[in-house]
């Protein structure tokens, strides 16, 4: 991963985040979903990492890093204050599923093969006042 990053190729993670209302005895009810994509490109001439942050295919911000550690932290931690706007509904028993598309490969050099993480669920907690 680091080698691919330092080669100057655009390297990206795609986070798919979906929020559900949990219904234990029935199918979960989808409430909202979004995708966050972080694309990093290393400029070997200036030794800087350019990170583009995209939300639902729209560029939100661009940042420049000179340290790899700071870049890695920025790429793997999503700090969004208002990720979803679910309106006045009470967010009881909601869960979040996150999936990161790591890379693409080719099976037998012919069949496209995507490497992704599994879905992770977590309970949403009410924000502390």
């Amino acid at each position, binding site marked *: 991963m680091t*080698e*691919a990053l*330092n*080669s*100057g*190729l*655009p390297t990206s993670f795609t986070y798919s985040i979906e929020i559900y209302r949990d219904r234990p005895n029935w199918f979960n009810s989808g409430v909202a979903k979004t995708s966050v*994509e972080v694309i990093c490109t290393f400029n*070997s*001439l*200036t*030794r*800087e990492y350019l990170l583009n942050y*995209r939300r639902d*295919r729209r560029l939100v911000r661009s940042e*420049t890093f*000179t*340290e790899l550690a700071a870049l890695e932290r920025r790429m793997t931690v999503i700090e969004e204050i208002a990720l979803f706007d679910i309106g006045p509904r009470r967010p009881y028993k909601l869960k979040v599923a996150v999936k990161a598309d790591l890379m*693409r*490969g*080719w099976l037998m*050099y*012919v069949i*496209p093969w995507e490497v992704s993480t599994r879905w992770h669920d977590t309970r949403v907690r009410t924000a502390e006042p």
Partner: protein
Amino acid sequence: MAKFRDLLLRYRKDPRFIVSVPLTILAVTSLVFYVRQQADELTPEALSNRILLFVLWNINLLLIIGILFVLLRGVVKLVLERQRGILGSRFRTKLVVTYVATSLVPVILLFLVATDLLRLSIDRWFATPVDTILRNSERIAQMVQDQAADAAGGAALEIASDPAAGDVASIDDVLAHVRRFHQVDLAAVYREGILLKAQADPRSPIHQMADPTLRFFEDAGRTGRAVKIDVVASGKWIRTAVPMPDGGFALAGVFIPAAMSRMIDESIIAHRDFRQLRTQRQTLKASQTMLFLAVTLAILFGTLWISIYASRRITIPITALAEATARIAEGGVGHRVEVAATDEVGRLIESFNDMSTQLAQQRQQLTETNRRLDDERAFMVTVLESVATGIIAFGDDLELLSINRAALQMLRLETPPPGARLGELLRAELEPLAVALQELTSGRSRTREVALILGGELRYLELSAARLSGGGDSGWVLAIEDSTQLVQAQKLAAWNEAARRIAHEIKNPLTPIQLSAERIAKKFRSNDSDTGAAIEQGTQTIVDEVGHLKRMVDEFARFARMPAIHLRHAQLAVILDQAVALYRDVKPGVSIAIDVDPEIELLMDREQIRRAIGNLLKNAVEATEEGEIRVAARRAPHRVIIEVSDPGRGVPDEDKDKLFLPYFSTKGRGTGLGLAIVHRIVRDHDGQIHVHDNQPQGTRFEIELPA
């Protein structure tokens, strides 16, 4: 619109149309959709790369789908055709299997070998010392930049460590001293991200350089040192910042001129590109493999398609020929194969059509001939049924082939069943007819008279047999003429003539007898002196005439008692010599010449034939005053002809048809039975006798005897 519909109707069953249209639509739709979705998030390089892979992948997918579709469609059609027993399906299956097998194996082998060789080449390419050279080149370039950064860092650190740098009045001296001592192109002090003081080499393009960002100073404050490299139009700036004790930042910079900067950048970019390629090695292999796969699948698709198309092109005319042959075999002549072909199969079809046309014409001619034959047969049947002559046709095995109504009436037969045997019909009263039939078919004669007693009535039938010629069957045609009335009339006429002749012959001697008797009586009453002589002369006359009457009666008796003939093989020349010997030199001036083939041998009654020839010679000698009588015998087809010609006075035409009647004579003397006897002997030998005028004069008798 109508034109488009016509095109659609024309090509809707074309396999190329069926396959290519959906594949094209699917490919275009997929490509547009993907480009629409992905175009706004990728760099041009990545876009082109991913689009290439996407296009290749879709081409491969479409080709695979196309191959499976064509293959399954062809297989299903072949299986259905074989189940339905359609002609040519087995041949087409063999052709398709052969085509596919001969192309599939080498193409797949070539694909495997080529892709493996390609991947091996790519791996070897990345395993060469190129990586080492490029990496070292980049390291050297980076070391140059690091040295510049370290030099700038040392200068910045000295500025930050100099207490005079915090004093505004002396900062310029510090910066100028540090810049000269460390030989950097820029020395500056920043406070809160804002430039406080700076000393720069006037030759350096400081105006092309932007101010550092706050993040740069934050990094320097957090890590104790921050390096920033800026690429400008005339070269490259390398700046290093370190924090100062009073919260500011000391910054020093080194400018690398364009010539060196370009070499450094080229080294870095070359290694970067190499690393990118190495990172994308799997993708590169995949793209090349997919490219090969696309070519392979395209070849397979084309081969499969062509094989099915070619097999159909080959089998369609052959199937049409087979079907047409079957139809002709079932009787459907004139059937033509309407399949366009220009090769040898085309010539075969042309020949077949010609053959079919000729067959139709021949059948039409045959039908016409049969109809004409039927008409002729009906006509013949009508004729045969209407004629008074009885006609019987039968085979060599005596199977009855045909018998007309006249024959049935003559023979008093019922209509026989088909296939009846002639021997079964000619029994009892008709037995003599069967015997005569056997003689006729044995070849001894072609005509025969038969007397039958049918229902107590004597019937005379004249039979005439002819050989059936032509055709596969052989047999005979027997014509039966009822001559009962004719024979009876002839007999009656003959007897009338005989009675008249007998009366005349008897009357002729009676007159001299009567005259002699009256003279004797007259002389006896007158008692003349010559009475004795007259009595003697009269009695002599009476005795002579009575003797003549007696001889005439004896001849007639002999004629009536003609013995039955006894047939034996004999040399005709010997018989004729014996007959001629009796009449040679009997009359001065008359000679007899004989010209007979000594090899002629006949079945005959030698005495009767010698008597007949003798009678003819006797008449010839009597009719000839001077000259040569000629006796000749020669062979003719199925018969022997004996001629006796004389140069005498000849026979008038009006007497020729009465010449062979009893008691008919042109000589004024004789019994008139000689030629009648000759005629009867010849008839007894199943022969015929004719009288002709001899040339230049005289009479010529011609006897025909069966040989």
